[in-house]
């Protein structure tokens, strides 16, 4: 069964304290892996797409990396405004266009 698992479920950091969020997947054939940010009461906001192992993408304090079995979202020197739920989603060959989401990591950055 195709699955996407994110860890940890929740993470609390101090401002400036760098860390990583994990997304592991078991899919029959990966077509793409997507990271989204979701604020309370809003829809997911697109961050990155990764297509192949070894690929990396960066945006401000965020960097996403991809291996054959997992992806990491590294956050460097976070600020309180980075607090949000971060969602990982996978598109796989047997799944046509749909995205399979993990349950998300709730990130809180304390000032």
């Amino acid at each position, binding site marked *: 069964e195709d699955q*996407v698992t994110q860890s940890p479920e929740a993470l609390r950091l101090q401002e400036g304290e760098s860390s990583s969020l994990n997304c592991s997947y078991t899919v029959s054939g990966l077509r793409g892996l997507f990271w989204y940010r979701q604020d309370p009461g809003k*829809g997911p906001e*697109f961050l990155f*797409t990764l297509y192949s192992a070894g690929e990396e993408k960066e945006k401000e304090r965020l960097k996403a990396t991809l291996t054959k079995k997992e992806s990491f979202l590294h956050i460097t020197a976070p600020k309180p405004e980075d607090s949000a739920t971060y969602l990982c989603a996978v598109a796989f060959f047997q799944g*046509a*266009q749909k995205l399979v*989401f*993990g349950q*998300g990591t709730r990130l809180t950055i304390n000032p």
Partner: protein
Amino acid sequence: GAGVSQSPRYKVAKRGQDVALRCDPISGHVSLFWYQQALGQGPEFLTYFQNEAQLDKSGLPSDRFFAERPEGSVSTLKIQRTQQEDSAVYLCASSLAVLVAEQFFGPGTRLTVL
């Protein structure tokens, strides 16, 4: 801005009522998706349109759920005879491409069934 819009933003229904949720995708986006998000969970796929054709409805939880996109732009998700377990946020997303590409989400409609 020209993002995905959804209406209504909030809907309260009594059990057994029918509801209709509307999605206006980004202009020119070929692909349109509906997802259901329970509290504290990631979104779950419901159905997918390419233009006006519904190509995948494997995620619709029962035959009470029906979606359409008759002219290949605006889409409506209809839920008949709502049940309490239908309470969730319903998200619409659109994508420019037919192939796998990033999906852009609307703000969602929060449905509460009493």
